[in-house]
């Protein structure tokens, strides 16, 4: 465990809960475009952190740095440190495959595999060596229950995942990720492509999962951020072509009622963005 970094900077809230992810001076380059600069923040364990900011301000890109999904895109470079439970995620020899198992991700577009509901959820465990049918059944049931989908699909487990509604598909994806026991759940605008009634189900689900999984959600919808998150980070790209920065990071209540930075206030009150 490297010693806790204590230098306060705009991104570090008062340390009252256990920290899951620590980010210090993170820069991100995509080819010769400098996308993010000087991002530092601490994500609390078993809490919901929201990333907000105008579209194209790099919040999704930053989210992808946390589980090294950006490695899949050729020509990208990450500087600075990202610690998961104190261990450097970009350290030499770290297996990104294992990292992505522990830091699951939900995408904007629900993307169940073109397989049955059962196979979708069992895909992760099968990847990591679970073979016994009975064990798989337990994991599938448990994951679908945690994702509040079990009652709706328990009789149609062999039907294709694509036959479900948008909201159900998204919850299936969540169940699929839960099946591999992640510590962290990254959600990249999970609700922007699904109907309002399902959004409510997903938000309730996040509230329940918060007790066992650290959740980070990128969202355009400030009301959603206010409703579901404990802490909020506001990202901004001042001028086009310039790297985006983390303007302010703090308890959601404070950010939305008494933001310290004028730029946050302008964004919150909808003057721009």
């Amino acid at each position, binding site marked *: 465990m490297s010693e806790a970094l204590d230098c306060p900077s705009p991104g570090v809230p008062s340390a009252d809960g256990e920290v899951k992810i620590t980010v210090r001076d993170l820069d991100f380059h995509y080819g010769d475009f400098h996308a993010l600069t000087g991002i530092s923040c601490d994500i609390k364990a078993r809490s919901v952190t929201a990333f907000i900011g105008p579209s194209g301000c790099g919040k999704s890109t930053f989210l992808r740095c946390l589980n090294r999904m950006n490695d899949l895109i050729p020509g990208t470079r990450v500087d600075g440190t990202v610690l998961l439970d104190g261990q450097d995620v970009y350290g030499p020899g770290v297996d990104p495959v294992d990292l992505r198992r522990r830091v699951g991700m939900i*995408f904007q577009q629900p*993307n169940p595999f073109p397989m049955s509901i059962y196979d979708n959820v069992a895909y992760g465990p099968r*990847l990591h060596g679970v073979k016994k049918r009975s064990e798989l059944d337990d994991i599938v049931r448990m994951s679908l229950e945690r994702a509040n989908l079990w009652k709706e699909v328990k009789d149609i487990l062999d039907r294709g995942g694509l036959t479900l509604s948008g909201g159900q598909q998204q919850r299936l*994806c969540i169940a699929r990720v839960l099946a591999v026991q992640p510590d962290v759940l990254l959600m990249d605008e999970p609700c922007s492509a699904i109907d309002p009634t399902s959004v409510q189900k997903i938000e309730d689900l996040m509230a329940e999962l918060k007790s066992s999984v650290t959740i980070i959600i990128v969202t355009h919808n400030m009301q959603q951020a206010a409703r579901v998150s404990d802490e909020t980070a506001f990202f901004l790209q001042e001028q086009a072509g310039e790297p985006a920065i983390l303007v302010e990071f703090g308890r959601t209540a404070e950010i939305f009622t008494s933001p310290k930075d004028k730029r946050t206030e302008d964004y919150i009150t909808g003057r721009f963005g």
Partner: protein
Amino acid sequence: MKRDAKNLTNAAALAVFWLAGLTTVVVLGAVIGYVLVNGVGEIGLEFIFTNPHGVNAEGGIWPTIVATLYVTGLAMLIVTPVAVLAAVYLAEYAVQGRLVRTIRFAADTLASVPSIVMGLFGLALFVESMGFGFSVISGALALSFLMLPIVMRTTEEAIRAVPKYIRWGSYGLGASKWQTVSRVVLPAAASRIITGIILSAGRAVGETAVVIFTMGTMINLPVLPTDPGRSMTVHLYQLAMEGINMPAAFGTALLLMAMVLAFNLSARWLLRRNRRMQG
């Protein structure tokens, strides 16, 4: 007056395009019809399952049917793994650069090689230098080079048709690249890949110039891959040019057309079923 002239030419032009469009159907109908009308009388169990005998190859064409299916099947076995894995490389692993451009240029060149050149190549390499002699294996190897670019292209298109975010879903669960490709991408693209293989097999069944110089022309029921044989296409060519046993020629042509159509139609059916299933 001017407006009518414009509409007149437009109507005339449309008529020409309708003519062009329907001509293709008429021509196809003529070719298939001619072969069907003259050949259907010849087709019978006896024609399909007995050997040719007698002065002018009366009787059935069974050895040529076996030879055609044998060489095409063997070619499919040889080309499928290589072409599919090559397509996986191009679609999933390749980074744009000189190497990939060379591979694509080579595949395009291979696809445009005249079949007679592929035949002589098979003769020079497989029949003579590798010492297989006139045989099914020589034919299959030559055909596999002919089929390689076709299967590579259709497989790559099938893989690229699998949406990106499905791959991310798999990576997001901690799957390695090969796990993602083998467990999600390939199964999702499977039916289109199979369609590509069937279409290339249909093309191989219709080949003459390639097999005439690699599998030979001896009417013989091939058992071992090193046995020679005469394909249905070569048999049709010989019967047609000898011009004595025309009924058998028509019968062979009809069976050949039936086989090729079966390949093409089954490929189309598979594609449509897949599109509906994934829709």
